[in-house]
Structures are given as C-alpha cells and as structure tokens.
C-alpha cells in the first residue's frame, strides 16, 4: 500500500516536471529532431554520420571552438557554400563546399542539430536570427 502511494506520487511529480518543460525546450527539441532529418538528407554524405568529415577532403564538424566562434556566419556558409581555404582542428582544407538550397527554417533546424551534436553546445538557433544573418551575407 505504502509503495503504491509513493510510486503514485513519483509518477505525479514526473508528469508535473514534464509539463513544466519550458516552451523554449520544446522548441529546441522540435528544431533538433527536424534538423537531424535535414542533416541526413543534405549533409551526411560529405560530413559523415558522426560529423567526422573525410580525411583531408572534407572538414569535420567537431571543431567546437571554430563553430562557436563563427556561429553567426554558419547560415551564410550553408546558403552560399564555401570557396575559401579553411583550417579546422589544425588541418588545412582547400576544397569547395557547394551551396545548399535550404529555407531559413531548415537552416535554423540543421544548425540546431549540428550545433548540439558532435561535441558542440550552441543551443537553439532560431529562424528569425537565420533570416537576419542570411540577409547580410558578405560572400
């Protein structure tokens, strides 16, 4: 009897905590899981399932410092591709990345996924920010 009451209370608490999950956290989960799908369709072939890249042909997405530092230019790199040489995890890459035709919301989703996978912890990247960045792309 006592056990039943305790487990009942526990269940109630769990439900309470679950429903208390903030709006932001729910949005994060939504972006992250959609972003995983976008990544698998548009990025995985080159950058790999673990974001490991390919030898010295394609850079990995595991350089957390680089991604954090360039967080604001990532939407433009996806939209317009990358021609310039880039140093990732101490290795030079001089190939080109083709532009990827994605909508702002897809860019936000895939950046939320990449930005919180492979060791990265960038948090939610929202669509409004992406729109603002892609309107000011330098390349």
């Amino acid at each position, binding site marked *: 009897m006592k056990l039943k009451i305790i487990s009942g209370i526990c269940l109630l608490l769990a439900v309470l905590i679950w429903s208390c999950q903030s709006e932001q956290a729910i949005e994060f989960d939504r972006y992250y899981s959609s972003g995983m799908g976008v990544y698998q369709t548009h990025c995985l*072939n*080159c950058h790999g399932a673990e974001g490991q890249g*390919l030898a010295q*042909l394609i850079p990995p997405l595991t350089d957390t410092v680089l991604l954090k530092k360039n967080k604001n230019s990532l939407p433009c790199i996806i939209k317009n591709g990358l021609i310039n040489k880039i140093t990732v995890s101490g290795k030079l890459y001089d*190939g080109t990345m*083709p532009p990827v035709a994605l909508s702002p919301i897809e860019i936000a989703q895939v950046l939320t996924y990449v930005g919180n996978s492979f060791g990265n912890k960038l948090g939610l990247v929202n669509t409004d920010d992406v729109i603002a960045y892609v309107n000011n792309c330098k390349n």
Partner: protein
Amino acid sequence: MKQLTCVFLLVLLLGACKLNTHKTLPIYGNRQAVNKIVNGQTITDTLYQTIPAFKFVNQYGDSISSKALDNHIYVADFFFTSCPSICPVMQRNMLNVYNAYKDTADVKIISYTIDPKYDSVPVLKKYADKLGISGNTWWFLRGDKDAVYDLAAKSYLVGVSQDSTAAGGYVHQGYFVLVDKQKRVRGSYDGTDPKQVDQLIADIKTLKEEPIKQ
C-alpha cells in the same frame, strides 16, 4: 568411455563437414558454351564474360593497361573528384576496403573517373593524397571518356552518364564491382551502404581462398 569416444568422433565429423563447405561466389555476365579439343578429344567448356583490355593513366602519371591487373583480385568503382553527392560516402567506405587489403599484394582498387576533362593526373594525385592513399594498391584511372563509359555500362554493369541538370554535372551509380583473377565479375555491392561493403571485404577473402581452375 566408448560413448565419449563416439561423441568425440561425431563432433570431429561435423567439424570436418563445416570446414569443407566453402562459400563460392556467383559468376556474373553472359556466358557461352565452346567446344575445344584437349588431348585429341572434343570437350565443351564454358566461356565467361570478362572485363576487356583497356589502357589508362593512373594518379602517378603511369600508363596502366589491364595487363597490370592480371592475377589480381580487384574492386572497381566510378567517381569524379568534384562530385558533391554520393562520392564522399563511397570513398569513406572504400577506405575500409583499402585499409583491409593495402598490404595484400594481389588485391587492388580501381576508381575510374567519369570526368577526365577536369580530373587531370595532378588533380587525381592531390585527391589521393588528401584521402591518405599512397603506394599502388588503389589506382585512380583516367582515360578516354567514351572508353570509360563503355566499360562501365557493358562490362562492369554500372550506370554512368553526363547530365547538366544533376549536381556536379554527372550521374553515376555507386556500385563497387568485385572482379576475380580471370577478370570475371563476381559481385556488385552498394558502395554507399557500409554493411554491403563489409560483405565485400569478406567476399574478397572468400575469393582469395578459391582454387584457380586451369
């Protein structure tokens, strides 16, 4: 004691059975029956489809004829260095084949470029270097475009074509084709699927153990 001996013998027998069942890989392509005379007697033999002779250039600028592949088991695929779609995942998987057999003298990997205009010898060399490929286990071959497309379609049975609407300008299938020492196709694997590539690595071993029929 007698019973124990019986059980022991039975286990030994079963074990022997298992050892003798070698898996044989199928032989692909057209075949025809031919009559030939051996020691004055006419016998019927099967003539299998083989990869015809070719002469291309590898990433080191060396001229490579199909003779260089005599008595070699090899894996062939078709790619181009500026390929934005399935090539990276194919090469990632082919690296597993390379790492498994790079120290084995009679196993090779041949990647034919389907864009010889852009993929010059220096471009292929740079590509190989960046993939971390050295030595003569894995050759990137460049040759007459029509000859390569012909080989792909008629001999390796891999679809390739030029298509200006496709990303990168070319379309090709991602098959890895396994060829035996007599230049017969013995297997075809989806190079974008790591599981099938593991099967290929296992099948090369099976092929190596196959006795050569004279």
